[in-house]
């Protein structure tokens, strides 16, 4: 009797556990299966670059043996290339990116403030134009931009072709547009009564803008600045035609030309450069992803 009883209870337990697994799998287990598969798909190319970067003197073919060798040799090579001033590219990218994003935030905030707080002729038309303009990115007019800067070179060599100031000015041409619209929405959420209270206390429009409003809208300024920085870092078309001499170029232009010359043999050094280039952008992105996602859904960038 007892034995019999035990057998039945065992059978029940077994049936029960397989039943639970099935239930777990049906509820969330299959989701983990997809998740793991997608995680491998997403992360593999990045792991591959990291492994390639850690192989000194590696080519494309040796990069296939993941992490078969680990050393920082390629990073040392990277900074000692005779023709490719990687450190200069890195610095240029940071400088151009930071100045452009500060300029973009500032110009965009000025415009958004006037659209949000003032009523004037052409306001609605101006906003509509800005929204429509974002459909026509600057790179469509790349030929005209090149020839315009070529013309400016004759008057002001310092801001014409092969000058980073010229490139930043071109980028600032795209400062309004989607950014203004994004900021405009956020400015509208700051109650106008705050402005009015400050006005009653005797603050002028400039004071209200710089000391009160700008502080209240700081989150959107951070998002716009960051998106502009990432966008500038990734920009290739205009940078490649404006910046000519190697020591003036950005990472996008320099690394592309470097890797396109001898694709398979330089791969390890390129990978080292790619890892270093991606680090600040990825760190910023992952750190601020919550805000960026909010900005993305509000204004749709990329």
């Amino acid at each position, binding site marked *: 009797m007892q034995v019999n009883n035990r057998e039945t209870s065992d059978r029940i337990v077994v049936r029960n556990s397989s039943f639970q697994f099935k239930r777990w799998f049906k509820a*969330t287990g299959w989701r983990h299966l997809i998740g793991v598969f997608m995680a491998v798909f997403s992360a593999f190319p990045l792991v591959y*670059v990291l492994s390639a970067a850690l192989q000194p003197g590696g080519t494309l*073919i040796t990069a296939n043996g993941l992490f078969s060798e680990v050393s920082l040799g390629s990073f040392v090579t990277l900074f000692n290339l005779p023709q490719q001033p990687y450190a200069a590219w890195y610095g240029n990218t940071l400088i151009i990116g930071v100045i452009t994003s500060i300029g973009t935030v500032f110009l965009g905030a000025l415009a958004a403030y006037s659209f949000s707080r003032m009523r004037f002729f052409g306001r609605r038309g101006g*906003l509509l134009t800005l929204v429509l303009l974002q459909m026509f990115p600057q790179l469509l007019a790349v030929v005209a931009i090149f020839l*315009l800067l070529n013309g400016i070179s004759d008057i002001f060599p310092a801001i014409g072709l092969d000058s980073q100031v010229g490139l930043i000015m071109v980028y600032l041409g795209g400062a309004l547009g989607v950014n203004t619209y994004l900021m405009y929405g956020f400015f509208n959420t700051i109650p106008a009564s705050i402005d009015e209270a400050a006005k009653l206390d005797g603050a002028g429009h400039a004071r209200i803008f710089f000391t009160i409003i700008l502080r209240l809208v700081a989150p959107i300024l951070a998002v716009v600045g960051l998106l502009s920085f990432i966008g500038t870092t990734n920009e290739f078309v205009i940078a490649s035609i404006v910046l000519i001499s190697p020591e003036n170029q950005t990472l996008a232009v320099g690394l592309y030309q470097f890797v396109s010359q001898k694709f*398979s043999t330089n791969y390890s050094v390129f990978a080292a450069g790619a890892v270093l280039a991606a680090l600040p952008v990825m760190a910023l992105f992952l750190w601020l992803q919550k805000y960026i996602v909010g900005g993305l859904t509000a204004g749709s960038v990329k």
Partner: protein
Amino acid sequence: MPTPRTGRDRTARDNSLVTQWRQSKRAGRIAEAASVGIKILLVKILLLGIVDAISVYALFVLFLKQDWVIFGLVLAVTLIVNWIYFSKNALPAKYLTPGLIFLVIFQIFVVGYSGYIAFTNYGTGHNSTRADAVASLIASAQQRVPDSVAYDITVIEQLGAYSLLVTDPDGRISVGGTDAPLREVTDAETDADGVATALPGYTSLKFSDIAANQEVIAALSVPLTDDPNEGVLRTPDGSKAYLDLSDLVYDEAARTMTNTTTNVVYAEDGTVGAFAAEDGTELRPGWKVEVGFDNFARAFGTESIRGPLINVTLWTFAFAFLSVATTFALGLFLALVFNDLRMRGRNVYRVVLILPYAFPAFLSALVWAGLLNPQFGFVNQVLFGGAEIPWLTNEWLAKFSIIFVNLWLGFPYMFLVCTGALQSIPGELQEAATVDGARPWQVFRLIKLPLLLVSVAPLLISSFAFNFNNFNLIYMLTNGGPRDVTAGVNVGATDILISMVYKVAFVGANRDYGLASAFSIIIFLLVAIVSIISFRQTKALEELN
């Protein structure tokens, strides 16, 4: 017990208090406004001063170049900017002007300028004005005149620029540089043979200086007179100069170039912007002229350009559409999969899944170009065991690879967007539907999807617009290749319109800015049509007020 104050008493006392309070308040305000005002005024004057200094310099240069149209524009903009910031009204303009100036120059003007370039033959061999072309043709055909007389010279230097102090065989002394034709001087010092050796204001170069700067000095070519046909003086050694004459002689009145050795006359052809002989041979360089609709006629009329242009346009639309469709489908699917509160570790998956989005896009494309390399890449070597599958060099496989890599690049964005949209759909709707007996698929298709599409439709449109011009991916992954060898322009099977523009304008020896701009104009029109249609559909613009 305090006596009740009469109404009048209170009013009088309160009034005086209020007046006092108002006065002190006003005094404070004035003081504050004055201090802030001065600071702001100083910053304003400083910034305006910088702007004005830059424009005065530009005006000066433009005045010297006699470029009156641009001179007028710069002057007008400077005056308007000064008026805006000194006037008491124009408040919105004070905030809009800085951004607008950049916007107008680098986004709006350049579009109009593209339109103009599309109607010219601007490009390699037609880079400049007619006068430049004449000078450059004559200079390129210059040769030492056989048994030319030797001129005694001294190389002199002023402010880092070299000139030649020339004593001609008749004993006349003159001075000139590369851009300054010879002019006679009388105050030069001469040696015993009557050869000029020094000129006040200039430093005469010693032999060692000449040896050190030999290349620069050998490159000096000093025109004899303003007329380029008269020839130039060049010095091979820094002590003697010889006359170089051009084989080509330019006749300003007849507007012809004559080759003096072959006696071929090249007449100016204003429609192509070059000197052309009767047999059709053209002298290069020519110059820039307006060519009307020639570039468009070439784009649509020449079979070797029209065919590729149509293919590229179709592929651009297909690529943009497929990119949006695939990334949205995968992103939505993953959002549904992970949108289950019972599931553990969702945040970990989320962070790993958005890694491709955080990685800079141009690097991703280059990394994938390595992974998919036919001979050495990881995909062929490891995943397919050494098979040489031409992922990037076969026309259709390259198209597939591009869509696939773009899926990797783009699905995290759609995943994030769809997750946000799904979470904003109220849970009661699903409960109500379930109570009414709807199956999960029905709940998704009939309730969640329509609500989701309403909020993500504008994002899908802008994603389409982005991919329509997704230059980086195409150029870095396949470089537009494999190249179409039958095409009359440098274009490949995976090129989209914008990468075609870039290649025609900037890649290779033969740059054709005119044709590239004509292609740009075509893109503008296509984008305009697409955006008109899509904005009408979504009515996104109606929210603006």
